[in-house]
């Protein structure tokens, strides 16, 4: 199981930012907001979200649009949007490296970078986790904490967390599961995105193991990183 590594506030000119690396996926997320929206974005009673996903190389395409839509599903549910009526929260997800970069020249992808919407489970879970830190850094109001993980089910029916691309390709199915976390426990499912062939039983057991993993991410990574950040912010009160 590869480790989540996070640094906060690396970008100075935005309200909040985080850099996260897990496995061979690296991502930077910036959050600006609540700011003045363009007129067409303005919603009278709640904040509008502008989510932009940029790939590690090349132009964004359908794959990035899919990621944007899935991220929007999660973020809409956790951001307290009624706190910021008529305002805009802008979230930019910039990938720095992904599995595909590493595997680009291999015969399996035929040297093609774009594989469509499949095999993006690692990117999706990394983006969701990174968004959590960036939103917390920007002090955007959140209903709950949340964490996501990516799980592949290999040929022996065993779950593999954050599997690398070759493992993903051989796996029977792979899933991205995002939980909201209340009182340090995974409580509600915010997102399940699956790919491949699987039975209901397999899916349920995957979600079960994902909930344990999300709780672990919350208690072992999120809590420590944010506690460190708050300590640094209030260093003068010591």
């Amino acid at each position, binding site marked *: 199981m590869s480790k989540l590594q996070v640094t906060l506030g690396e970008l100075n000119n*935005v*309200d*909040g930012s985080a850099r996260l690396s897990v496995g061979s996926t690296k991502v930077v997320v910036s959050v*600006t*907001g*609540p*700011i*003045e929206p363009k007129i067409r974005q303005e919603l*009278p*009673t709640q904040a509008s979200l502008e989510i932009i996903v940029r790939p590690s190389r090349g132009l964004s395409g359908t794959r990035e649009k899919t990621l944007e839509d899935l991220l929007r599903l999660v973020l809409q549910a*956790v951001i*307290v949007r*009624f*706190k*910021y*009526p*008529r*305002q805009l929260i802008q979230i930019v997800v910039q990938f720095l490296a992904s599995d595909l970069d590493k595997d680009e020249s291999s015969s399996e992808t035929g040297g093609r970078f774009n594989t469509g919407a499949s095999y993006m489970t690692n990117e999706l879970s990394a983006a969701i986790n990174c968004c959590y830190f960036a939103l*917390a850094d*920007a*002090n955007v*109001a*959140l*209903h*709950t*904490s*949340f964490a996501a993980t990516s799980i592949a089910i290999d040929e022996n029916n065993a779950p593999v967390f954050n599997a690398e691309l070759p493992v993903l390709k051989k796996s029977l199915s792979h899933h991205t599961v995002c939980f*909201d*976390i*209340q*009182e*340090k426990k995974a409580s509600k499912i915010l997102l399940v995105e699956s790919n491949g062939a699987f039975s209901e039983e397999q899916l349920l057991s995957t979600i079960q193991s994902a909930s344990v993993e999300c709780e672990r991410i919350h208690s072992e990574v*999120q*809590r420590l990183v*944010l*506690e460190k*950040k*708050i300590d640094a*912010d*209030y*260093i*003068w*009160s*010591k």
Partner: protein
Amino acid sequence: MSQIILPGDSLAELTQLESAVTIGPGIYKSPRSQNIIPLHAGILKEVTLNKKTQEKLIYVDSNSKRYIPQANDLVIGIVIGTYSDAFKVSLQEFSMPVQLSMMAFPNATKKNRPNIKVGQAVYARVSEAVPEVATEIECIDPETGKDGGFGALDEAGYLFDVNMNFARELLFNKSSVFLEKLASRAAFEIAIGINGKVWIKCGATPDPSIAKEEDKEDVDMDKDLTAARVNDMKMTLAAANYLISCQYIEAAEAGEALKKAFRGTTKA
């Protein structure tokens, strides 16, 4: 009493007491579930308002870069435009501009308009902050009807940004050591906006325009004044550097930071 809290953590222990609890910034009552939840990752603070009834105030204190106006906040804004009867004031880059009515000045009438130009900084109080409509600020003390320290800030001062949590500390914490330390080194005038903007001016050399009229023939005096003003500017910049560096150090290191920032300036 303080502890670190994250969104999703429970406040049940604090809110389901028999005594009344007032919720402050960073805490929200979800309209759907009617639960009281923390919104930000920050330090949970409890203040006992009334010892007899054990009435409590709870809030989450956390640093942020984006300012959201609240009524009665003391802020520094920059005038970025004028309407027929109001100024358009920016409290922060890219945030919604706020309105400063020309009538919201002491002794202002339709004929006697305040003399403020675009680009000037003003110290003001947020008089109305409803998120759904445009925020309004005013440069008048509502109790006395006088200026009460509000109004345009002198251009001989220096305006700079600090973290918003640090601005709150400087403004509200009366036992904070940072300004006390600074006062031991230099005489200064300061305006702290809790939107993260601080204006500071050291020394009390007369304004150049006034000085010119009085000392037209006295060249030596003029030279002295210029030197004094340059020295004031140096001190002002040093004071600003000192306050900026204070954000990242412990209170005990304030003396050292002061020495470092004021290196090369003469004592006033």
